[in-house]
């Protein structure tokens, strides 16, 4: 534990009351299912059934631990990397993959799920989170925003503006940086000269917490504490979860170009799913039968997902003109009519 301008930066695990058994089992199950999802989605991408997939294999503890640490009414602000977080929130996996399949910009209903669309323009979602949280604060609602961001994206101006805004206005936001060591090919050392990413909190006057992102219990505790503090008016927190992306940036990336040899293997030894399983087995929270049951459930989940993926989506091309505005302005009405005529003509030709 070290001190950063009055705020706690946790480098080691402090003693904490153990989480309820039921919750620990739930975390485990979500991790195993998340891992199966990553595996299956990567397989889809290899099979060409997804246009692209940014795997979070190795980062499941960050995503599962954080989502389960907040309430279903709290809002998530995910990036493209957060598929397992969304799955853990309870979003239909097909809807989670809609973006990567090239089907829809956002496959799920963000309002129903209290989850913003998966965000590609880096760091921009942090501002949406700060604004939504500030709105909830003004409305007097006990709602927290959980904003996800990668290590690389902390270099963007929007990250800075969001943390500053949230701190000044004491908006109830938890900023969770998954420091997976790389921004595509660029390693952390080229991204920042700071000692840690959590150090950045000092510049905003907010607590900065650094946790082992491959330990789901650590992540759960840190996010839970931050969310509780935010909910009770204590303002935002920056949580850095130190982890590693075990796969390439996406299936289109070639990580052999930039990873030092042996690095991925070292991190694989700290696999968050394996670690949790070993620990819970040792603590008697799980036995081998329970583990087998969870594995089987995860396998069944993946198989079902695969089966559901057999059906390719079909969308009416006229959707192009929907929801650009709440109603079509005249020039779009003209353009829509043109497309409709084209489609009708093509239909006749068939």
């Amino acid at each position, binding site marked *: 534990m070290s001190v950063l301008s009055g705020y706690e930066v946790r480098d080691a695990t402090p003693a904490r009351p153990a989480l309820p058994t039921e919750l620990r089992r739930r975390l485990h199950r979500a991790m195993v299912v998340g891992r199966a999802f990553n595996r299956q989605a990567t397989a889809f991408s290899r099979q060409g059934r997804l246009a692209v997939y940014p795997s979070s294999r190795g980062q499941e503890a960050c995503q599962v631990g954080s989502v389960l640490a907040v309430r279903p009414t709290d809002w998530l602000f995910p990036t493209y990397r957060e598929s397992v977080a969304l799955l853990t929130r309870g979003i239909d996996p097909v809807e989670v993959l809609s973006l990567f399949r090239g089907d829809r910009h956002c496959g799920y209903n963000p309002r129903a799920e209290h989850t913003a669309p998966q965000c590609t323009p880096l760091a921009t979602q942090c501002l949406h989170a700060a604004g939504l949280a500030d709105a909830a604060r003004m409305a007097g609602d006990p709602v927290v925003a959980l904003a996800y961001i990668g290590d690389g994206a902390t270099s963007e101006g929007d990250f800075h*503006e969001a943390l500053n805004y949230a701190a000044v206005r004491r908006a109830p936001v938890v900023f969770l940086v998954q420091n997976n060591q790389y921004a595509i090919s660029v390693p952390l050392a080229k991204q920042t000269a700071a000692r840690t990413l959590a150090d950045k909190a000092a510049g905003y006057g907010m607590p900065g917490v650094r946790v082992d992102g491959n330990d789901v219990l650590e992540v759960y505790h840190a996010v839970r504490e931050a969310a509780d503090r935010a909910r009770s008016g204590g303002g935002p927190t920056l949580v850095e979860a130190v982890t590693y992306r075990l796969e390439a940036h996406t299936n289109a990336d070639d990580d052999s170009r930039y990873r030092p040899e042996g690095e991925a293997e070292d991190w694989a030894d700290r696999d968050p799913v394996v670690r949790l399983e070993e620990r819970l087995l040792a603590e008697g929270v799980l036995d081998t039968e329970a583990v087998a049951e969870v594995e089987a459930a995860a396998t069944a989940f993946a198989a079902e997902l695969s089966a559901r993926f057999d059906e390719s989506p079909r969308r009416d091309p006229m959707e192009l003109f929907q929801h650009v505005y709440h109603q079509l302005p005249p020039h779009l009405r003209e353009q829509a009519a043109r497309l409709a005529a084209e489609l009708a003509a093509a239909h006749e030709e068939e």
Partner: protein
Amino acid sequence: MSETSMAVALNTALRDAMRADERTLVFGEDVGRLGGVFRITDGLTAEFGEERCFDTPLAESAILGTAVGMAVYGYRPVVEMQFDAFAYPAFEQLVSHVAKLRNRTRGVLGLPLTIRIPYGGGIGAVEHHSDSSEVYYMATPGLTVVTPANAADAYALLRRSIDSPDPVVFLEPKRLYWQKERVAFPVDTGPLGTAAVRRRGRDATLVAYGPSVGTALAAADAAAERGWDLEVVDLRSLMPLDDETVCASVRRTGRAVVVHEAHGFAGPGAEIAARITERCFYHLEAPVRRVTGFDVPYPAPLLEEHYLPDVGRVLDAVASLEWERVPA
């Protein structure tokens, strides 16, 4: 009906909108206690409290990005960008989120969000304080872009913008802020997206908006002395454009000149001229002419009079409309 100005009209519209709907929030740089550098938000914090009209940290991307989050949560933010060129830091939020969020979420997260931007020159300001940046917004599907040329429209269009379920870029012509007029509030001047004919005429149509409407009207007066009877259309809405009103006029007159202060090259007038031509080609006696700011960075005040379109330039353009071709 008392003497007022566009600045007062805008201030009144904000106050009335905040009274009408408590979800309406006003925020930005210096909009609180100071009342904004142009005093458009004067008195709002006093009347509605710091929670409904507040100063943000100095960061435009933050202002717009947090407004997105607030709108998603159910508020109706009205944000101020202090000057035209200081909206640029928010460009990514504007283009990639504000303009697209309704579409990306299939209608679930529409953004009732108004972005007020004082724009344009003619006020003797230092660089970066006189940009006419409207074409960047027009070229971004998902945005509505409006701009008033008088106090009544300033009030009415701002109320309509705030009430709109879509994000509206509301452009305030700085040099008209203090022009005196007589208007009684509240006033309604019709839905967003409609142009207004400010002067009837038979011989040619001047199409203008915001700060250039006055120039167009003055040019029409001067033209009358030369025997040309000019119609003047005030677009009011730049996106959508009111093709119907504009084209009805041009079909009658057979000639058109677009007047604006923004740069000409790939400026608003390009779209306006192209649309008129597409729709009224066989009614046109001459190509649609454009009278615009030159395609150079906005100059220092000492030279701005030479930059800005004026009556002389409009008349030159009118004169070039092939009058000899018409049977008298």
